[in-house]
């Protein structure tokens, strides 16, 4: 009879791990502060600064709702950040609820995206000033909105802001609650300069079973709230900043389509950072190919779903056959903005679908990463083809648009603002990884309790436990 010993591994081909190895690995990496990391922080910070300067320069030319057309690309940037970064925390929330193990290395990467919400709030503030008044339909020209009336206090600007604020507060609370045990643990082990501060912030966390119990419930509650809020906020923003600015546009699928694109881009954004952390961050053993393989199936499903939503959206307008519906189709898809649409369609559906269709490509690290990069870029072009034309329409109180407005092209300042905004998001993300480990220490170690590799007949297989 042969004797064997179970091995604690997170994948069959991986290394044997223990709580001690994981803790020291992550703590050492966290306090390493590599030169490349500092360089990246400096570079993205510089581009972010250039973006702020471009914004101020452009704002000096005028900043009110009559000059909305100049700010379409800024609105697209805001919508892109809200969609991609705002939806990324759902990866941790959703997959934690399904209690799978492959999500463990992705969890913190996705939660850290919540801090980018601070930038989206800052971007929303000037956009609130650009929103035209709803007007009073009983006494003069007015526009149709989601809010039905402008009688209520704060409609729509305060409530747009409050919705996004609630989302960001919820996301950051989720991140802090999740990261608290990790910061406490690594600060207890390190002699770094930041240790006194980190220890002081987390000294009340000792890891008692009652604290872990509350921790588990807190993550479920905040995660649930985040999910409920995200879809609502995306819908409100889409209706207020796209549909209600284009007279005659009535489409119940578009807001849901933007929310779905956000989820797709959020998952893709997480994959991209995971690839970087695996390749350049020294975390290779914690990101097995199996994790990328599993998330690639979600990406494939989301690409198909994206196509379905688009098809439903087009069909509604196409078979409506009203002139305004034909004009809207021509505006955002087939004439004025056909280039951004072609890029959006190919990058969110065609290319990822054909890349991820093949199991050998899915079953790799690079395949899902390439598909993810395409999806994130494609999502940006989706926001361009929706927000730029909507901001270009002047007569928002008309009954319907009777013509197809021409495309508005970005000027030099727009391009700098876009580069600056995206760099700003990366800068804030990188800055956050200075105080929060990019790998969820407690979650990876929890995984070690339930994952074993053991022989079965002639092979070795992974055995997973589900403690429910």
């Amino acid at each position, binding site marked *: 009879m042969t004797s064997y010993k179970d091995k604690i591994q997170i994948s069959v081909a991986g290394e044997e791990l*223990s*709580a*001690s190895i994981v*803790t*020291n690995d992550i703590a050492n990496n966290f306090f390493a502060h590599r030169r490349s990391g500092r360089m990246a922080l400096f570079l993205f910070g510089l581009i972010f600064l250039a973006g702020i300067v471009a914004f101020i320069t452009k704002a000096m030319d005028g900043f009110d709702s009559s000059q909305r057309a100049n700010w379409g690309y800024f609105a697209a940037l805001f919508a892109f950040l809200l969609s991609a970064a705002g939806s990324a925390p759902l990866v941790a929330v959703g997959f934690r609820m399904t209690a799978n193990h492959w999500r463990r290395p992705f969890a913190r990467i996705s939660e850290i995206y919540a801090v980018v919400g601070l930038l989206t709030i800052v971007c929303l503030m000037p956009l609130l000033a650009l929103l035209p008044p709803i007007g009073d*339909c*009983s006494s003069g020209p007015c526009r149709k909105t*989601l*809010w*039905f*009336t402008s*009688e*209520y*206090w704060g*409609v729509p600007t305060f*409530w747009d802001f*409050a*919705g996004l*604020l*609630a989302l960001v*507060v*919820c996301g950051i*609370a989720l991140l802090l*609650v999740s990261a608290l*045990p990790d910061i*406490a*643990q*690594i600060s*207890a*082990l390190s002699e770094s300069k930041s240790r006194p501060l980190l220890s002081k912030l987390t000294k*009340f*966390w*000792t*890891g*008692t*079973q*009652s*604290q*872990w*119990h*509350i*921790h*588990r*419930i*807190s993550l479920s*509650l*905040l995660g649930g*709230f985040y999910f*409920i*809020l995200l879809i*609502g906020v995306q819908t*409100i923003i889409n209706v207020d900043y796209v549909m209600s600015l284009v007279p005659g546009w009535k489409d119940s699928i578009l807001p849901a389509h933007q929310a779905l694109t956000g989820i797709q881009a959020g998952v893709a954004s997480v994959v991209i950072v995971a690839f970087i952390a695996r390749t350049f961050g020294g975390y290779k053993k914690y990101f097995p190919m199996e994790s990328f393989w599993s998330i690639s199936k979600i990406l494939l499903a989301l690409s198909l779903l994206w196509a379905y939503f688009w098809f439903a959206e087009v069909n509604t307008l196409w078979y409506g056959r009203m002139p305004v519906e034909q004009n809207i189709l021509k505006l955002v898809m087939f004439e004025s903005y056909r280039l951004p649409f072609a890029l959006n369609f190919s990058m969110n559906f065609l290319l990822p679908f054909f890349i991820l269709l093949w199991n050998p490509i899915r079953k790799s690290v690079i395949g899902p990463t390439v598909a993810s990069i395409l999806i994130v870029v494609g999502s940006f072009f989706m926001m361009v083809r929706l927000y730029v034309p909507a901001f270009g329409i002047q007569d928002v109180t008309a009954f319907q648009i009777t013509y197809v407005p021409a495309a508005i092209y970005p000027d030099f300042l727009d391009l700098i603002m876009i580069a600056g905004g995206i760099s700003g998001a990366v800068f804030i993300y990188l800055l956050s990884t200075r105080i929060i480990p990019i790998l969820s*220490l*407690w*979650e990876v*170690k*929890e995984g*070690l*309790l339930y994952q074993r590799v053991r022989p079965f007949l002639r092979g070795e297989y992974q055995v997973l436990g589900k*403690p429910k």
Partner: protein
Amino acid sequence: MATQSILGLYENAEYAAEASESLENAGFSKEEFDFLTDTPYPEGALGERHHSHRLYVFPFIGALLGLSTALLLTIGTQISYPLITGGKPILSIPPMVIISYEGTMLGAILFTIIGIIFESRLGPNLKNRLYDPRISEGLIGLIVDCNESKIATAEQVMTQAGAIEIKRK
């Protein structure tokens, strides 16, 4: 009599679970000891006490307060400025929906955060408990808070159960 704390460190979760059984057999109640771990173990796996909490009450109260504020704002506005729009009733539900939804969510989230701070005992006035940094590397801590007279018994039981080190405050 004054309460004292001791912390036993275990390399193996099985030994720590056995220590909790031995403590109970020696007359300690489950309220007198707790485990310190670097990762969440399945509830009850170590033989710890059942932890009751009121965390679910917080978001519920927050949601109710948020909803009430939103309704107060919308209904109050409608009653204060009773304009009939498009033949619709003065108190029309659809325009109230989004504001009510946002108010409810905002209240629920803020109260959940308060609840987490309160229920996790993360407040600044709480005493510093015994801790060992090696718990972060996988050791299991078994902390006993009991009368001075029982400390010697606790130490003996924990050592017999395989503690690699005992720390006192």
